[in-house]
């Protein structure tokens, strides 16, 4: 409650989330390096790898977090990535055929201006989708969750329809649009390009949110929309800005994802990434109620997610991508629990498995832990053993905590 006079203490308190996440990253990285020597032997490659994917995630996580801070939610990022990638590749494909109609493979060597205009058009499409969201939310009156859920489902389908039509007109119907051009591939092949883009996006967002009137108004609207309107703030315009930032950052990420593999693939690209973006925002300290969150936190949140995913990949080896969802889910629960419990006095001392719900939850968690260690090489028995051990440990803890509370209650009375 009381503001500490010491500026260092004040700084530490304000940036607690970021500091914890930085230490978390170092800890996870160090721990993994001890188990698996890949981080030591191929240090440079691995650091670049983490930076690249942190940046790819961070770019649209920053956009999604601005929407969250402003009091909304954008579920469309994953599909917007696919749609953005498709828009970019399709523009290149169409324009290059116009320029060189007789070439055997027109996308093999594309003039720079075509790539530049494809990028511009993709970002413009991002703005259009954001504007559509704003219209659905402010005029039609849909809840943001529903409006962006509609595009999450709709945009990917639309991207596939357009891909099949355009490829058919160009001669061979396909589910992907391939771009052979080296320059386009260069964007995705270099680890530092996503980093530069991420730095620009995050830097701009930081200035916007911390130094400008618009940013302050976004926080105000996220915290109390009615009060913001009654303070003479044009909330519809702010929403337009927030949703456009959400979709256009996803569109930029879509360009990078497509250039990395040299094609757009609406069927697979960016599936589930909207939840990664929201997870990064939440891990970074944003509140889904709006009005709370910092860009620095989101940047660290994205980095922490990627570091943990990468560490698990190093430790497990092949098939590690299966664990991504599990890790993200776990981290979101832990991060939000951490944020809430560190604000309470009793915090971590509280009984987490009280009463009947506790007895029901303990076997569920034990079974989940047991299931998570199943491997094609291992056996069901191993999973069951792990589950049984977890069950025993948690039950022991619960009984201990139950006894402590009854004794505490007695000493009160």
């Amino acid at each position, binding site marked *: *409650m*009381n*503001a500490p006079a010491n500026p260092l203490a004040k700084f530490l308190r304000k940036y607690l989330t970021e500091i914890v996440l930085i230490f978390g990253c170092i800890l996870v990285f160090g721990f993994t390096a001890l188990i698996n020597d890949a981080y030591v032997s191929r240090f440079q490659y691995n650091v670049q790898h983490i930076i690249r994917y942190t940046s790819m995630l961070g770019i649209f996580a920053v956009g999604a977090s601005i929407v969250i801070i402003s009091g909304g939610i954008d579920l469309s990022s994953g599909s917007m990535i696919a749609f953005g990638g498709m828009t970019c590749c399709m523009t290149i494909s169409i324009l290059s055929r116009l320029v060189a109609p007789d070439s055997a493979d027109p996308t093999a060597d594309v003039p720079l201006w075509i790539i530049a205009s494809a990028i511009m058009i993709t970002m413009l499409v991002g703005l259009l989708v954001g504007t559509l969201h704003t219209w659905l939310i402010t005029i039609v009156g849909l809840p943001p969750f529903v409006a962006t859920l509609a595009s999450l489902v709709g945009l990917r389908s639309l991207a596939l329809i357009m891909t099949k039509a355009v490829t058919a007109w160009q001669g061979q119907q396909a589910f992907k649009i391939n771009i052979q051009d080296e320059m386009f591939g260069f964007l995705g092949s270099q680890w530092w390009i996503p980093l530069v883009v991420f730095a620009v996006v995050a830097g701009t967002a930081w*200035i916007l949110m911390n*130094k*400008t*009137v618009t940013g*302050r*108004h976004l*926080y*105000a609207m*996220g*915290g*109390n929309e*009615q*009060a*913001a*309107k*009654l*303070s*003479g*703030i*044009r909330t519809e315009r702010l929403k337009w800005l927030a949703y456009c930032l959400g979709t256009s950052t996803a569109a930029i990420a879509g360009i990078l994802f497509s250039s990395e593999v040299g094609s757009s693939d609406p069927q697979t690209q960016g599936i589930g990434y909207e939840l990664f973006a929201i997870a990064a925002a939440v891990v970074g300290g944003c509140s889904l109620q709006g*009005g*709370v969150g910092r860009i620095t936190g989101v940047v660290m949140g994205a980095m922490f997610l990627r570091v943990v995913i990468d560490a698990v990949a190093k430790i497990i080896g092949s098939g590690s991508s299966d664990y991504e969802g599990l890790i993200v889910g776990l981290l979101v629960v832990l991060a939000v629990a951490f944020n809430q419990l560190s604000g309470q*006095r009793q915090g971590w001392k509280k009984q987490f498995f009280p009463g009947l719900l506790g007895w029901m939850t303990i076997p569920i968690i034990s079974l989940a832990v047991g299931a998570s260690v199943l491997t094609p090489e291992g056996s069901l028995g191993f999973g069951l053993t792990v589950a049984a051990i977890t069950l025993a440990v948690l039950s022991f803890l619960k009984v201990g905590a139950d006894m402590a509370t009854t004794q505490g209650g007695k000493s*009160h*009375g």
Partner: protein
Amino acid sequence: MAEPIIEIRQVTKRFPGVIALQDVTFDVETGELHSICGENGAGKSTLMKILSGVETQYEGELFVKGNLKQFTSTRDAESSEISIIHQELNLVEELSAAANIFLGREKRTALGFLDNPAMETAAAELLRQLDCDVHPGTLAGSLRVGDQQLLEIARALSLKTEILIMDEPTSALTEAEVARLYRVIERLRANGVTILYISHKMDEVFRLSDRITVLRDGRVVQTLKKADTSPQQITHLMVGREIERLDQSVPTATGEVVLKVEDLSLPWPGHARKWRLHNINFELRRGEILGIAGLMGAGRTELLECLFGASSEVPQGKILLEGIQVLFSHPSQAKAAGIAMVTEDRKRLGIFSELDVGQNISMCTLEQMRKGGLINSRRERESVSEIVNNLRVKTASAQSAITSLSGGNQQKTIIGRWLLTKPKVLLLDDPTRGVDVGAKAELYVLMKQLARQGMAVMVTSSELPELLTVSDRILVLSEGHLTGSFSRAEATEQKIMEAATLG
């Protein structure tokens, strides 16, 4: 002397950094109506939370009917026959009246399904006892505040409550509803229910109570019999200091007309009355404080919203600001034209609880504090400290959380937010609601000062004495019609109430 039904012994409650209650000791006798008075922050609510089992951690002892109790939940308190009617009503608006009364204790059929007919019959009987003609099947959300409150009382009755705690029950009621509430209270007392009554309003306290306990800064100042005390003494004990008296002798010099309203009407689609406001005409002059009186639902807030471009529908008629016709469709236009509005519901419509005191103050004028597209934090600091100093906002610093301020100081930051826009017309919608006595007096002085500086002020209030204190002129609204206009010299509570209850 009657047996004490509740004995409170050395109850102390600490919150991080604050002591909300300190060594509170007093008795409540069986069957009495015991009022608890105190400024905001005196500890009334905390004490009631302890008694009703909401707050379970405290020091000290609590005896109910001679037995030591430490409630672990509201249910636990209810089983000791203590119920509370909160100031903020706890109803599920989407459920029926009957369902709300029996929420958590639903009657069931032999098969274990909900027995709605039985609940509705029982609810109808309870509501009939309370003079309430609401059908038990009506959705709670569609009821008027007064009826919603009776629902809560019905719920308490259904629990066979012996001790009923009422937290400022009249704060949102019309005069008629207040009268009905008084009758209900009489009936409850006749049935032997002990009532703990929390209120700011001296007239109610003196009308209803047997005894009065005054709390100040978490301590009991004194418990007095009604017969042995006076409203002046209680107010004095509550505040612990002399309240600043308004200098009424100097009449405010009013200047030229700033705002002129002609035939203003606000449609009310889908409602039998058709108009929230109908054919309102008035003028507002520079340096004038114009009070707007009226009961709940008379259209006070709606009138201010029309002038501020915040009304739900487009108003009809003419609004002339300094002779030029204006029609605002958004508060930002009103702000640019020099109209400011401090809203009624501070928590919901006023403060930004995630932002600090300074950011709350600068919210309306950030555009003017820009330099090269960015916020000039030095200019922002200067403006903020100007407001904090001029309005004497009591805050640790401009970076403190707005929620750490008392109601009165929060209200000052919101008024300050608008003063920075240098408005010609300041609209204040019930500015002293939920503000304690001392801070109210400060707000009156502030209004007078602003008027003297030439600002035109319109103020609404649900408390007539307050309007009579501050206003140069009082307009009275009744069901959307302007039914009276009184100068300071003519206005009396009697005349205003008569106009406010005109059909």
